[in-house]
């Protein structure tokens, strides 16, 4: 069998399906390969979908896609062992015709997206693992080897959307191994509850949702973050830390998740729920400085496999779709101009990314990963100090407020020192500037 396509896309997550859809829609012959039983069966996300990136590819997606709750409220909780200090933002503005974020179920969403790819005319084959890239004598990628009999297939361009582990680019020597200090391991459980109970517990109406992001002493100085998201009939609860931190020992991923579930601010949300799935996933959190080479002769990398995640803003699937779209548009343009898919010509893909929010945002936060590594007290000391400060103010105990103010200032100076506090503020502002 020597079948040849215009393009092969490896993977049926948001990045791969965006790329395959845009190319198929433009009339190219596209083969999309997915190793899972069905699209989405290997894919894990929180999962909040940001509308904008998808809307640019499928403007009518709201009428068709399996969307769960429109997220109208975002909460950020800073936890200590016994308390949380929270910041909420909720607005009726989020309740418009075109909500900008939804909770989704990836197994359903990815299936829908990949169906769109099929409808656009691409060939989609599941249960097929791509084992290696096929290069010609000049080192140009000309196809892929799969684990099926007679499993070699050929194409003018191969788009690698094979996820965070980026196996193909790594095995082909196009990139290095993920760094353990820049890769987060997240574990998650789905807790099922009646939808009206979820609505009561989170103070929301039908179809409305809440997203809670959690930081604090829970991760015991490990760089990490938890989350609690509402779906229609379940609550997703997860927590992640840098792989390098787990490697040092002291806490297991599942132990950490169980501790989050037991926290006094979290536990009542989950009472009498039924846990129906446990998943784990890596997130490339190295940001701008960790982005590998994303194109070469006959190949491009998109989404998680290109490390396109903004961990500060919890954005990834949107960047995946945008990068898939740009890669596809590069292919379409070069085809039209009868140009080859040489590394030189594919540079357009990177230029498109550089000029978009994807690389601009990652550049803005490029100092952040390093900042967090060097300032672990942000995860431990500050939640404690702030929680204690608020408790001090609220306590009615016969001590006058002025003395309480002094007491709080003393506790901050004692905990971190005046110069430490000033240095932290400067470093923090610099890291996000």
């Amino acid at each position, binding site marked *: 069998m020597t079948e040849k396509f215009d393009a092969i896309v490896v993977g049926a997550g948001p990045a791969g399906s965006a790329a395959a859809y845009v190319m198929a829609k433009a009339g190219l012959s596209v083969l999309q390969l997915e*190793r*899972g*039983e*069905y699209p*989405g*069966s*290997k*894919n*894990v*996300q929180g*999962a909040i979908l940001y509308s904008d990136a998808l809307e640019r590819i499928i403007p009518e997606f709201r009428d068709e896609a399996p969307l769960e709750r429109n997220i109208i409220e975002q909460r950020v909780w800073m936890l200590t062992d016994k308390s949380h200090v929270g910041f909420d933002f909720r607005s009726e503005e989020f309740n418009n015709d075109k909500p900008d974020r939804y909770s989704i*179920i*990836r*197994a*359903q969403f*990815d299936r829908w997206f990949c169906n769109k790819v099929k409808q656009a005319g691409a060939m989609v084959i*599941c*249960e*097929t*693992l791509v*084992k290696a890239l096929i290069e010609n004598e000049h080192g140009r990628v000309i196809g892929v080897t*799969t*684990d*099926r009999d007679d499993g070699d297939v050929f194409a003018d361009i191969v788009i690698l959307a094979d996820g*965070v*582990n980026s*196996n193909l680019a790594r095995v082909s020597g196009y990139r290095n*191994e*993920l*760094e*353990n200090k820049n*890769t987060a*391991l997240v*574990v998650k*459980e*789905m807790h099922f509850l009646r939808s009206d109970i979820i609505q009561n517990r989170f103070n929301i109406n039908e179809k409305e949702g809440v997203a809670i992001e959690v930081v604090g002493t829970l991760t015991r100085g490990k760089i990490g973050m938890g989350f609690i998201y509402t779906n229609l009939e*379940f609550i997703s609860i997860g927590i992640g830390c840098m*792989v*390098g931190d*787990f*490697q*040092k*020992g002291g*806490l*297991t*991923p*599942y132990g950490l998740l*169980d501790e989050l579930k037991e926290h006094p601010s979290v536990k009542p949300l989950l009472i009498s729920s039924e*846990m*129906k*799935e*446990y*998943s*784990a*996933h*890596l997130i490339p959190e190295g940001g701008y400085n960790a982005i590998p080479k994303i194109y070469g002769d006959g190949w491009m990398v998109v989404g998680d496999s290109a490390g396109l995640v903004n961990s500060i803003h919890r954005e990834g699937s949107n960047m995946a779709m945008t990068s898939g779209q740009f890669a596809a548009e590069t292919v379409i343009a070069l085809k039209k101009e009868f140009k080859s898919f040489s590394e030189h010509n594919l540079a357009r893909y990177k230029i498109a990314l550089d000029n978009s929010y994807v690389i601009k945002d990652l550049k803005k936060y490029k100092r952040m990963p390093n900042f967090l590594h060097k300032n672990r007290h942000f995860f431990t000391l500050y939640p404690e100090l702030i929680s204690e400060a608020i408790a001090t103010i609220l306590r009615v105990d016969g001590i006058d407020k002025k003395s309480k103010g002094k007491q709080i200032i003393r506790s901050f100076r004692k905990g971190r020192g005046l110069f430490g506090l000033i240095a932290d503020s400067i470093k923090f502002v610099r890291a996000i500037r």
Partner: protein
Amino acid sequence: MSNNVEEKLFQNRYLLDKENTHIRIKNLDLCRTSCSQPCTFSCPAACYEKTEDGNIELMTDGCLECGTCRIICPNNNLEWSYPRGGFGISFKFG
């Protein structure tokens, strides 16, 4: 395997490939003699267990295919790939 992980994994759907294992330890001696064995506490599915004689026992049945073990292995002592197409974890929700 720690009990609460087993309970968690029990909820998941797997299509087990009885003929192949997708992760293999290259040199077992290396695990015993010169390794802090982070796989035994970092794997989210607790696939790696330390036996009484200090060896590492690898059971990939509950594997969530995350890749953590490959990244953390101090001796780069794993042959790591995904399961054959159609096999392994199959998330109902994801």
